[in-house]
């Protein structure tokens, strides 16, 4: 049953033009950047994957998650379609799990498309010499997936409080912006806030950070995932439609 609903949720996400738009951005933005680099004679080809990863993890991927989560939960409440899945022979916990899974799958696909596009473009632009860096790039993209996924879980939790996707989306963006700015004033927040870990992947490339440090950050992100998921399930189970 859960597989059936993951397919359903993935199909629904895919049928939204917004999702396709994001995929297109993941291809177009690197292409445009590559042209800009070429035009300005900057041989930054080998930097393209990292440059784009920074840009996407900072802004576009969280935005994609915010939109998907608010549509998948709050939006479906508003359009009276959430009930359709809930009256089928599937428990609410499984409906919740499959919605989260569909969002996560899209994040993975988007990161994958971005990585492949930037690597190919990097080769085409002069200066793209990946002899040593390819493994680093793949590692970075895989590592980047984890904090962004945790942010997705947080946005799923936030979506439970709203019955309209616009309200949920605006709130998520405001929270994100606040969380990004807060460490400028209170640096200690950057240790605790999941939103400060979007460029976590830098700890994995090259000689990287120590194992203890990596494990520590990983557990912190994991704890965010567990907590927001549990709280999200409770709220979703309690929903009266």
């Amino acid at each position, binding site marked *: 049953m859960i597989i059936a609903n993951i397919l359903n949720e993935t199909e629904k996400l895919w049928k939204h033009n917004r999702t396709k738009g994001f995929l297109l951005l993941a291809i177009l933005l690197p292409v445009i950047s590559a042209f800009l680099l070429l035009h300005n004679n900057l041989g930054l080809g080998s930097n393209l994957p990292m440059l784009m990863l920074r840009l996407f993890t900072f802004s576009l991927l969280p935005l994609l998650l915010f939109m998907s989560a608010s549509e998948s939960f709050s939006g479906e409440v508003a359009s009276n379609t959430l009930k359709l899945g809930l*009256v089928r*022979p599937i428990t609410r916990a499984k409906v919740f799990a499959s919605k989260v899974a569909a969002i996560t799958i899209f994040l993975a696909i988007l990161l994958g498309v971005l990585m492949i596009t930037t690597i190919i473009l990097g080769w085409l632009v002069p200066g793209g010499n990946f002899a040593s860096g390819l493994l680093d790039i793949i590692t970075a993209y895989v590592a980047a997936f984890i904090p962004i996924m945790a942010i997705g879980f947080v946005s799923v939790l936030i979506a439970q409080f709203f019955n309209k996707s616009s309200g949920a989306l605006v709130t998520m963006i405001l929270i994100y912006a606040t969380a990004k700015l807060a460490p400028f004033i209170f640096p200690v927040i950057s240790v605790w806030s999941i939103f400060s870990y979007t460029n976590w992947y830098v700890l994995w490339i090259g000689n990287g950070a120590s194992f203890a440090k990596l494990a520590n950050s990983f557990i912190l992100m994991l704890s965010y995932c567990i907590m927001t998921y549990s709280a999200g399930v409770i709220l979703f189970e309690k929903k009266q439609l």
Partner: protein
Amino acid sequence: METALEVKGITKRYKSGRGVRDIRFDIAKGDIFGLNGPNGAGKTTLLKIIIGLIRPDHGSVTIFGNNTTDQFEQAMKQVGCMIETADSYDYLSAYDNLKLSARFYPELPRTRIDEVLEQVGLAPYKKEKVNGFSLGMKQRLRLASALLSKPKLVILDEPTNGLDIEGIVNFRNTIQQLACEHGITFLISSHMINELSLIAGRIGIMQNGQLIRVGGVNELVKPGITLEQYIVSQLHTSKEGDHDDHRQYIK
């Protein structure tokens, strides 16, 4: 006779004071049960509790022997339903909407979607997106979605809303055929008693969140008065009774 649906002591109270109180009834397999009552009597709330959209404060719902709280999946495997306030995905075609639902029933043959679209008369429009559909067409699609899984119990909330005359007749024939030929059980709510009396075998009357009378259509209608008149008279006596009940409550 096997019991298709058993509702025991369902109570749900909203902060507004409305809700349903201590509802008990059961439906035998193959019956068509009509739920009638004025707007706001609690019909939709009751149906939503039965299919698990709302959690009751007290009471239990059993569908073909499966309790909906603990065995939700098994219980709902037998159920197809159409809830007034549930819409289809308007960015998908009629066919795709049903395709999503069909995934929950892996044993259904691939041809089932076309079959059910044919049954409700939507076959010519199956590739069209739902956001272009008229109210009646959307209603037909909801009915198709409820019948899709060949359920043993079909729960329909105000099914004829938005349907034209032809649609209503068509709907009635479909229901009666399914009940007679396949032994499918129906629970249909409607505020239009005349319409219900044409198809239902038994009728339950709700008012102010309570089920005030349950009986066969023939038992309820006494010679000389129409069912309409009977219902109105029942609502009146019940209102007085309800009043007493309230006074007792305050004491």
